[in-house]
């Protein structure tokens, strides 16, 4: 994991001082609400329904046990003893006091954390694969590259006032778990014909009100040019992106208006002037950063473990967990483990301070002291020995972190929604909970198999409902809360956007509608077919027919 040097540390410390002074001036009346707003936003502070909400960066979803303990401590001292991992791979406090936020940032700085650019109209934290560095299908470990980009984007002066927020995702694996097609810039790292790392560049993807998949504007970019190329993209966007209407201000609208080809041409024209400039990444700098991501000191192990096999054979609950929550690993004898933050009855992504401390202990004891956050709002121990899995399971179970539902219907991605978010049209957490309660039979869940259900409380789509196999979106109809359902969305390299099945539903109807969608799938699926495959094969119509069929009188 990357470790700060004095330069990194000074930047976060100076940021704390800067923000502390901004907050002081605001509280003293020297800064108006409008003047303070963009300043606090670029530091992750939203004013929300009940209190400010503070978003803390977990760069590319990677953190260590010490940082996790610090977050636990902060929730105890400054919040209500729990926090929330969001779909942006970051950590949110729901009840901090505005006056306390500078102190919270100062606390974070002591463990090399911050809230820089977690919100606001700037380059946001970069999204990555939660299995980076350990995934068996990885081609290039994206982490060094993302760290170089993180530093470049932090307080980039030219892009401190973009038309809208700007999100970058980087993927280096065969299967895209970073959502490159639904980000403002999506970068795909791959090995070219000469075996050298190269970058494929997509722009203009995004969810929200106008969901659209990114367009490829460059097939092959030598990695050294990634920063200058992104600067060219951002400069075209900064100068020409619309600012007259917040709903049309994302880069996707500009790309759509110009056409991807013309947009790409303008980028290339700009890039001619930046190419080979000082921001060209050197091998030395890349190697320096990469030195922090050398593989952990793994023990040479066989890829079988008798105690593990025995536990699987004798303990069905453990076997069910191992089937869903344990993932392949590059290194023989090791596995990645997902700790589920999706227990029925708990808002998806929420963790208590006790759980956080326990998770930190698990990381220290079993996984080189490191943790990952996924955009599915779960936590991952990336390097667990096969022979330790049973112990990890038992300890995770004590902390209610071992729900064996990863990738299943109840592993719901869900935004904070109307309970917390002032932009919401409707609540989302109670919907997730009602669905989880309806589908609480594990055998049935395992039979339904792989499926992604995503919920957002409004068009801003923080819950990524457009790319959920089933998407639920809160809409406002004459002041009451309704839910629109889509099916057929998918994240990944063959991403697609869901199709609306028809008129929206009242909250109490939603679990029943999901039930009918599942019934249609089960009635129509072939062996081995996942929900999404069936939708793609037979189309939306049969689902729609079953959901809206009049009850036989």
């Amino acid at each position: 994991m990357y470790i700060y040097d004095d330069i990194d540390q000074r930047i976060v410390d100076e940021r704390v001082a800067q923000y502390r002074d901004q907050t002081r001036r605001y509280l003293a009346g020297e800064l108006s609400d409008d003047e303070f707003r963009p300043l606090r936003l670029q530091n992750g502070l939203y004013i929300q329904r009940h209190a400010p909400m503070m978003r803390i960066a977990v760069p590319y979803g990677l953190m260590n046990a010490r940082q996790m303990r610090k977050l636990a401590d902060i929730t105890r001292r400054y919040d209500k003893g729990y926090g929330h991992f969001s779909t942006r791979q970051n950590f949110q406090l729901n009840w901090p006091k505005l006056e306390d936020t500078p102190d919270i940032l100062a606390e974070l700085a002591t463990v090399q954390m911050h809230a820089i650019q977690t919100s606001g109209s700037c380059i946001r934290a970069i999204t990555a694969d939660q299995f980076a560095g350990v995934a068996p299908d990885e081609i290039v470990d994206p982490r060094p590259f993302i760290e170089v980009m993180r530093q470049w984007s932090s307080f980039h002066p030219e892009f401190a006032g973009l038309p809208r927020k700007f999100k970058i995702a980087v993927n280096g694996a065969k299967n895209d778990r970073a959502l490159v097609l639904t980000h403002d810039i999506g970068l795909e790292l791959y090995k070219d014909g000469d075996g050298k790392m190269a970058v494929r560049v997509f722009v203009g993807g995004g969810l929200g009100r106008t969901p659209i998949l990114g367009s490829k504007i460059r097939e092959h970019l030598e990695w050294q040019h990634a920063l200058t190329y992104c600067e060219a993209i951002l400069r075209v966007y900064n100068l020409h992106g619309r600012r007259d209407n917040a709903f049309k201000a994302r880069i996707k609208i500009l790309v759509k208006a110009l056409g991807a080809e013309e947009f790409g041409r303008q980028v290339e024209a700009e890039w001619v002037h930046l190419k080979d400039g000082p921001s060209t990444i050197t091998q030395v700098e890349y190697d320096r950063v990469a030195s922090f991501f050398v593989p952990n000191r793994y023990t040479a192990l066989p890829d079988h473990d008798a105690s593990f096999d025995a536990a699987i054979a004798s303990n069905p609950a453990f076997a069910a967990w191992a089937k869903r929550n344990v993932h392949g690993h590059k290194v023989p004898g090791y596995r990645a483990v997902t700790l589920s933050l999706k227990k029925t009855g708990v808002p998806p992504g929420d963790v208590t301070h006790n759980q956080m401390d326990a998770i930190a202990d698990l990381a220290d004891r079993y996984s080189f002291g490191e943790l990952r956050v996924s955009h599915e709002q779960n936590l991952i121990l990336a390097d667990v020995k096969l022979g330790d899995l049973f112990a990890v399971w038992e300890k995770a179970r004590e902390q209610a972190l071992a729900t064996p539902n990863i990738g299943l219907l109840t592993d719901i991605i869900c935004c904070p929604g109307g309970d917390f978010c002032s932009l919401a049209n409707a609540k989302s957490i109670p919907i997730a909970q009602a669905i989880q309660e309806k589908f609480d039979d594990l055998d049935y869940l395992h039979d339904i198999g792989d499926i992604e259900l995503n919920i957002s409380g409004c068009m801003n789509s923080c819950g990524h409902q457009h790319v959920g196999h089933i998407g639920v979106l809160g809409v406002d109809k004459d002041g009451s809360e309704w839910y629109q359902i889509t099916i057929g969305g998918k994240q990944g390299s063959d991403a697609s956007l869901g199709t609306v099945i028809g008129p929206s539903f009242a909250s109490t109807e939603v679990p029943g509608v999901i039930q009918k969608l599942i019934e249609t799938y089960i009635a129509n699926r072939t062996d081995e077919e996942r929900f999404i495959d069936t939708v793609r094969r037979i189309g939306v119509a049969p689902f729609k027919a079953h959901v809206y069929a009049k009850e036989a009188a």
Partner: protein
Amino acid sequence: MSNLIKNNAIVADEWTLVKLPAPAEETVRKQAGKVVIFKVTGEPAATPEQIEGTVIPENGKAIIPLTVWLARKEQLSARFAKGEIGVWVDSFELLEDLTDSVDDINRLPLIAINFPRFVDGRGFSMAALLRTRYGYKNELRSIGDVLRDQLYFMKRCGFDAYSIRADKSAEDALASLRDFSEPYQGAVDNPLPVWRRHARTSHHAASAGRVFSRHEDEVD
């Protein structure tokens, strides 16, 4: 007292900023019920009447709107030759209109870029382009909604003068020019990214020198 910062000090302002007269009829544009604040890049900045009606002081140095400069260049040529004319560009205007209007951009002693709202970041790119692409070397001034919390970014993008909004203290603003001592990325003020400025620590050195003990301040 002057609210102009130039080269890290508060100085007297020798220039008069000339604004366009208000248009004959002000049309308020609305979108989704909200008043549209920003103009789209390339939108016309002024009507012919406004350009004609702009009053430029007879004597002294004047910063005039780009549209006025383009339309009345001939008429101003003598004063331009004397170095009495600077031009200001609005955030939505096209920089090329300015750079195409002179054979040598450095014959302009002053260019100002207007920030209609401090969150409008187009001026950052415009400044960077003027300094790098067009080789502009003279005074580059930010005007309009210029507040201290953007000064550091402005400086990095190539501004060397800042006309702080009248109701704010330029004295206080000076401090913000030094918000960060060692930025990560290259920009106009220093094109070198940090790794070209300093030999930085690799993992080896970091783990040897700065012990990052996992339980250092374990909480309880």
